[in-house]
């Protein structure tokens, strides 16, 4: 496998109002290779990818594709040069079918020639199958879960058969099994000569998949295109954050058995199909809820919050049956909070400022007579969390949409940490958050629990689950399969979890 240089970027600079996102970054991609692009949240990874694909225009620097200098004025031109991309944020047309979304680029060949939908569906089905995605290509994407949308987006990029393929955190909302499928596919692509760039905050993945690596720190190269071989995890971490990773290991946390449940579900059935759900979370406890994508965990949380009706059973809060009809009631009457897994759809008001988002849960409680409320009050309340999570933003007035993906996620979590609720449902809190902040976040969650908050943690990130949870409940197909007491050993716990899931599937 002769590998030659497929693409080169040199001295790329890019400024946004108030931020210098890239300060002379270089990157070299070779054929027959998968290249890792790593860095903290806001380091400039996505910006670099957007520059390479013509979404943004560099202030300085050169892009060289197969020896030729190129200037992409728009994403169209990049696509025409067979540079494909999966962006960090989902970019699909909600009402279009999966097949049409996958092939949108290819429709443009002739504007008037009728679209051959049968063929489109057939083509799409092939890509979906390759990624192990079992959905009808005619389904509108608006009906898919976040994870499935992500896979559709990957299929969309693959369908271009690009020479250079850039993947910005494609695995952020995937579970290990889907990730494995994707990886074997990417390796096949690599072997066929493509040149791939892979961004992830899961270092294990990057190390497993990639053969070379570029690390960005604060908009500059911490290392440029060096072989992955010989780099250990700690080396990479040092490159990323300038020093070694502390060991934020599992900690045994004891909740005295006498502590009453803060929230308890008794024989809950829902209109979405949950049956016979019994669970409780005691004050100060962190209970994990694990399951594969589509297991119905998010849906359960939403049913608790009154978004979908319960058809049987009761939810008790502090021992008293509670009828929650909206998140507003949950927050203001029962002091229950919910960190959404879908930051773009439900978590954040993207067009508003950092402050406007982070404070949204505390406006009511903070406001005085006639609802009077000043920015200062809100800032006072939320800044500690924003600082603790190291949100990288030029100011609190910055529009959230302009933040990097990971930093957006931090805001989405921070606002619920600030809300000071007694019961917190946390759904995929660390999607897209870098390793350093993830550790801080875990700290914050533990701290909350230590101070008496009951936490129900939903995450598809198994290490995170095993690191944080006191007990782990396993859900599959809208039913609870069992419970494990966490002993902090990754091997043992993950095997136990998988057993529970597979036992139910075998049954």
């Amino acid at each position, binding site marked *: 496998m002769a590998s030659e240089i497929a693409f080169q970027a040199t001295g790329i600079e890019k400024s946004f109002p108030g931020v210098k996102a890239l300060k002379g970054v270089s990157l070299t991609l070779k054929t027959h290779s998968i290249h890792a692009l790593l860095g903290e949240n806001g380091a400039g990874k996505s910006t670099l990818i957007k520059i390479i694909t013509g979404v943004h225009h560099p202030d300085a620097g050169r892009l060289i594709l197969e020896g030729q200098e190129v200037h992409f004025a728009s994403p169209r031109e990049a696509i025409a040069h067979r540079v494909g991309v999966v962006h960090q944020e989902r970019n699909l047309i909600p009402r279009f079918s999966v097949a049409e979304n996958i092939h949108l680029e290819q429709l443009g060949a002739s504007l008037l020639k009728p679209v051959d939908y049968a063929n489109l569906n057939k083509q799409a089905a092939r890509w979906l199958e390759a990624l192990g995605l079992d959905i009808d290509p005619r389904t509108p994407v608006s009906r898919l879960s976040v994870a499935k949308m992500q896979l559709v987006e990957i299929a969309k990029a693959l369908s271009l058969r690009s020479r250079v393929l850039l993947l910005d955190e494609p695995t952020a909302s995937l579970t290990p099994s889907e990730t494995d499928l994707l990886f074997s596919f990417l390796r096949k692509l690599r072997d066929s000569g493509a040149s791939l760039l892979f961004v992830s905050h899961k270092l294990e993945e990057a190390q497993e998949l990639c053969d070379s690596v570029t690390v960005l720190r604060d908009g500059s190269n911490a290392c440029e295109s060096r072989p992955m071989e010989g780099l250990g995890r700690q080396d990479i971490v040092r490159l990323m954050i300038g020093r070694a990773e502390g060991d934020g290991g599992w900690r045994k946390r004891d909740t005295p058995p006498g502590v009453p449940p803060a929230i308890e579900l008794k024989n809950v059935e829902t209109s979405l199909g949950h049956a016979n759900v019994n669970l409780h979370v005691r004050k100060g406890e962190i209970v994990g809820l694990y399951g594969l994508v589509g297991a119905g965990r998010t849906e359960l949380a939403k049913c608790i919050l009154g978004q979908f009706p319960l058809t049987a059973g009761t939810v008790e809060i502090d021992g008293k049956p509670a009828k929650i009809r909206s998140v507003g009631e949950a927050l203001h009457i029962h002091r229950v909070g919910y960190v959404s897994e879908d930051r773009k759809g439900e978590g954040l008001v993207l067009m508003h400022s950092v402050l406007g988002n982070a404070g949204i849960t505390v406006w009511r409680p903070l406001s005085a007579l006639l609802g*009077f409320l000043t920015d200062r009050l809100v800032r006072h309340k939320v*800044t500690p969390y924003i600082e603790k999570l190291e949100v990288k933003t030029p100011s609190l007035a910055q529009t959230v949409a302009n933040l990097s993906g990971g930093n957006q996620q931090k805001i989405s979590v921070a606002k619920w940490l600030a809300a000071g609720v007694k019961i917190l449902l946390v759904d995929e809190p660390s999607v897209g958050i870098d390793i350093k902040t993830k550790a801080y976040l875990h700290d914050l969650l533990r701290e909350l629990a230590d101070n008496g908050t009951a936490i129900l943690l939903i995450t598809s990130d198994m290490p995170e689950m095993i690191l944080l949870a006191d007990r782990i409940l396993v859900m599959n197909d809208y039913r609870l399969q069992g419970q494990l007491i966490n002993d902090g050993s990754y091997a043992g716990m993950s095997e136990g979890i998988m057993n529970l899931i597979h036992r139910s599937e075998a049954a």
Partner: protein
Amino acid sequence: MSYPDLPAKGPSGDIVGKPRRNTAATRFYLTNEFGLIALIVLFALAFQFATDGFFSPFNLFSLGRIAAVNIMIGLAMMVVVITGGLNLAVGAIGVCAAMTCGYLIEVVGLPWPIAILSAVALGAMLGFINGWTSVRTGLHSFIITLATMSIFFGVMIFLTRAESYRALPPVFAAFGRMKLLGIFSPLLLVSLMAALFLGYLYNLTAVGREMLAAGAKPEAAEMSGINVGRIFIYCHMLSGALAACAALMLVARNGAAIPSMAGQLGQDWLLIAFLGPVLGGTLLTGGKASVLGTCLGAFLVTMLTSGLLLLQLGDFWIQSFLGLLLLAAVLMDKTRRTFLARRNMA
């Protein structure tokens, strides 16, 4: 517990809460409001140069008086546009309120302050009907207010048989004709007060912030504990009340409550109602409002019309010139912003 070697604060790259030097000023120059002020000054000078009498006391007075009403109408629309909806019934609600005020004074014989309050309350109530219906049915407020526009106006015409009420106490007409310092209409003060109130609402109260958040992204707002439905209803009620205020200002200006003051079905108000907010930077998709921008936008349009009338261009062509001027204004503003943004980044 762990990570003992970590600094407590974010690294130096984070500038939480400390805006960079210069950005505040730059940001202001980049705003719609600044652009509108620049355009207003520019066109005012141009008109002064090209016409006689643009700055004459009477013209300033009448300009201010028309602008005052237009601003109020713009605000009435703005508060609903924030929700991503719209209120086609502003005119109809306004006329209903004005006629109610006239009826209460002339037929029932209530003292005028009570009549005014009742009229505003009626406006809010009609707004409530709009809001409640659109929230409850989940239909877009476009279609709801399209229907209620017909209904409200139709009921009004049916009840009044298109007769005006003009036996109003002289304070009304006097207020409409009063001149402060020889050039200002006190109606401007009323609009100013409404604008200040809205500014307070959106910047300094929880409800106002909730309105903006709910309008920008209802799903996210709902999932953050905001009762989006109730907030939308508040917005419609506010819109109704402001529409009533605008209509009462017209009553003062005309010295009578007349059914035709907003045209057939109240549609005459619609263009100006949208124009002010949109020029002022309010997004039709919701979530962003500029009270000052709306005022300036409405004022700019009123001024352009007034200036053009003074220019005495061919009668039937005036409308074309107004359109061209409006285009020129927005294009100039756009160029300014692009220019500044480029300069600023380089």
